Structure formats: structure tokens, C-alpha cells
């Protein structure tokens, strides 16, 4: 993928995640204040289409953003070659996406 494409994906996912992270931080503080427990988390998420969509979108954006970000750091700080960089990006991105969607499934599907 070209550098410009990577840049655009990186920034688009960043913009998308600004409101998502703001909501996430509010939920973190709210849930912690109520005493974090499995019942507290699952009571909010299980069977909720809205939270399912919210977290699925969040996972997708974070996977793309994180994968491109890690690629950039490996390029600038570790001096990796293109092939290795792309391999790292795709493997990390797909692992994040799979684990993330699995987590969403775990807390949303009853």
C-alpha cells in the first residue's frame, strides 16, 4: 500500500476514534465508579445492538490505526525493510481485528 494511502487511513481512523474514545473514557470512569464486575459489563452490553455496533466499529478502527502506527515506528526506529514492515502491519492488524471482534462477540452475544 502506498505511503499516501497509509497516511489517509491512519488519519481517517484517528478522526473516527476521537468521539469513540471520548465515550469509552466516560464509560470506563462510570463503570469503575459503580464497581467493575462481569455483571456490570455484561448487563450493559449483552443483547445490545447499539453497543455491539459501537465496539465493532471501534475495534476495526483501532486495528487499522494500531497496525499502521506500529509499522511507522518499526520503519523509523528499527529501520525495517518494506517487506518486513508490510508483513508486520498485516499480521498485527489481523490479530487485533480477530481478537477484538471475538471480545465484542463475547460481551454482546448472550
Amino acid at each position, binding site marked *: 500500500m502506498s505511503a499516501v494511502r497509509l497516511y489517509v487511513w491512519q488519519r481517517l481512523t484517528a478522526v473516527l476514534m476521537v468521539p469513540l474514545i471520548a465515550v469509552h473514557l466516560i464509560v470506563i470512569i462510570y463503570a469503575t465508579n459503580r464497581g467493575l464486575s*462481569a455483571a456490570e459489563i*455484561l448487563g450493559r452490553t449483552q443483547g445490545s445492538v447499539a453497543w455491539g455496533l459501537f465496539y465493532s466499529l471501534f475495534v476495526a478502527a483501532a486495528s487499522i490505526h494500531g497496525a499502521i502506527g506500529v509499522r511507522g515506528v518499526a520503519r523509523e526506529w528499527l529501520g525495517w525493510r518494506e517487506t518486513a514492515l508490510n508483513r508486520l502491519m498485516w499480521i498485527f492488524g489481523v490479530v487485533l481485528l480477530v*481478537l477484538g471482534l471475538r471480545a465484542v462477540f463475547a460481551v454482546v452475544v448472550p
Partner: protein
Amino acid sequence: MSHPHNTSYRGDRLWLAAMVHRVSGVLLAAFLPLHFLVLGLAIEGEGQLDGFLQWTKTPLVKFAETGLVLLLAIHLLGGIRVLVIENMPWRDGQKRMATLAAAAAVCIAGVFLVALL
């Protein structure tokens, strides 16, 4: 022939802001798989997830969690800073803005810590 690089920007407040943004991003990327794996415990039932959450009640983990909230808040605010610099007309006071972003992130982590204790 290598050229001597001017590295006098190192240690500058905006260089530090870029560094904090990068390091917080790497740490969040490292944390995310663990975060997802823990939530995935719910597949095996509420008890599995609760078992893990009991472990998070220890002071050391609470301290680490506060650090994670700080990382997320500071990466968010630092990211907004980057987006503003890249997409909006330049404005003075960048150093002050970076300091304010850092202070705001510490405040968010502070609110989390109060909710936690």
C-alpha cells in the same frame, strides 16, 4: 559521506509531545491484545471474567490501570493536536497547547483514580 545532524530540537517541549504521542501509541498497541483476550473470557461465562476482575482489585493493578487511562487520554489529546496542526490554519501558542493537553490527560486519569478508590 554523512552529514552532521542538528539535533537541538531534542528535549524541546513539542519534540517531547511527539515522543509522548509515539510511546503512548506503542504501549496502547501492546495492551490491546491483552484487553481483548480478557474480555474474550466472557465466552466461557461470567465467572471466568469475574475471576480475572477480582485480580484487578489489587493496588498494583489499580495503579497500572490508571496508567492505561492516562495513556489513552494523552494519546487522544495528542492525536487531536496532530489533526489540528495538519488540517487547520497555524496558530501560535503550540507549546502551551501541548502542556494543556498533558494537564488535561492527567486530570482525566485523576478522575478515574478517584472513581477507582
